[in-house]
Each structure stands twice: as structure tokens, then as C-alpha cells.
């Protein structure tokens, strides 16, 4: 069995087994996600006014970075997301950057 280290969200596939594209993924090659920041340290108290911290989780478009890329725990991601939303409503962070 080949372990899917890079894609823990997908079921494991035996070595040599091929994906012929009829398993619901279509004919596109499955996307590969790279965990960019494996061990991000998030403080115990996420301050919604700490723009510099929150900026780390906002790529250029202004969207909130998904968890599969930010690589932080679900709890931390939730806290970061609410903090970003609060900062957005006070015009400290943009909703969209275009």
C-alpha cells in the first residue's frame, strides 16, 4: 500500500492501481495540494485588531486562506476566520482586492 502523505483527504490506492478517470474525478488529473505552512503558530488569543497576524492568512485576492493551505488546526482556523471577518467589517481588511 502506498500511503498518500501529500493527500490525506483521499483514500489510499494500492501500488500499481491506476486511476482511469471513471471514478468521479472526470478526466482531469486530480489536483495536488501543497501544504504551504505546515506548523504555523497561532497565539492563544487571536486579537481581531492584530492586522499583521491576520494578513498572513490572506492571499493577494483578499480571501481567507483555506485550511488545506494554511495548515493550522480546525480550531485555530475558526478563530482566525472570525477575527478576519470582524476586521473586515471595520474596514481594517478588504473584502475583495481587485
Amino acid at each position: 500500500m502506498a500511503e498518500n502523505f501529500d493527500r490525506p483527504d483521499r483514500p489510499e490506492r494500492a501500488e500499481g492501481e491506476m486511476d482511469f478517470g471513471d471514478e468521479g474525478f472526470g478526466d482531469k488529473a486530480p489536483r495536488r495540494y501543497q501544504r504551504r505552512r505546515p506548523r504555523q503558530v497561532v497565539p492563544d488569543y487571536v486579537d481581531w485588531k492584530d492586522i499583521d497576524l491576520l494578513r498572513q492568512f490572506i492571499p493577494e485576492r483578499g480571501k481567507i486562506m483555506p485550511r488545506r493551505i494554511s495548515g493550522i488546526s480546525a480550531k485555530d482556523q475558526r478563530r482566525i476566520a472570525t477575527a478576519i471577518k470582524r476586521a473586515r467589517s471595520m474596514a481594517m481588511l478588504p473584502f475583495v482586492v481587485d
Partner: protein
Amino acid sequence: MDSQKEEKKLAQRTYEVMYIVDPETPADRIEKLNEAVGKVIEKEGGTVVRMDDIGRKQLAYPIEKKNEGHYVLFEINGSGQEILELERRMRVNDMIIRYITIRVDEDRKKAEKLQAKRENRQAKRARFRATEETADTPAEAAA
């Protein structure tokens, strides 16, 4: 025990209130506004822990066709009654273009708990290491 119960009944909470004042209002009117906010809070039985006049800042997106805003932050201890009154007044005030109230005491308590846990664990680890070292040294001395 009794004092603890009473504290719970009073429901002391901590809030952060931030508002953005129209940047075109003169400085003395902003100061007056801040004073008025403080008075409202104290009248309704709350206490101002911290008042921070952050000042002019660029807005991330225009609000009411303005690209700048004067930010003011209040940290308030109270029961929530003063928040009710404050929000009502902020809503009708033309100078305030945006406001937000965040309850922070619960999240802060959680953070404190996490930190205490971590420190506890570290202390335990240190103690374990210390006993290991003391166990090692006599054996070395004997050898």
C-alpha cells in the same frame, strides 16, 4: 463561595467597542464625542478599562464615499446594559460611520486556560527531567 456566586449574578463582562468617526469632523468634536461615550458608559453602570484614540487610518474600502476614518477603541467592563444604550446612540449619531462591539472576556479566559495548561505541562516535564538527572549522578559517582 458566596462572593463568587454574587459575581456571577452581576455578570461582569468585558467588551471592546470600536467606532470609526467621520474624518472631516474637527478634533475637538471628536474629543467631545469620546467624553460623551465615557459618560454614557459610567451612567449605565459600566467602567472604562481602556480608551484608545487610534486616530486617522486608511480604510480598506470606502465607507460613505470616504477613504479615511478616525478610529477609536474602548474597552469596557460591565453587565451589557451600557452596551445596549451605547449601540443605540451610536446608531443615530451622524459622526460615527461604523461601529462594532466584541465580547472578549470568554475568549481571553480560554486563552489563559490554554496558557496555564501549557505551563503546567512544561513544569511537569522539567520535574521529570530533574529526577532523571539526580538518579543518574549517584550511579556515575558509584561507578
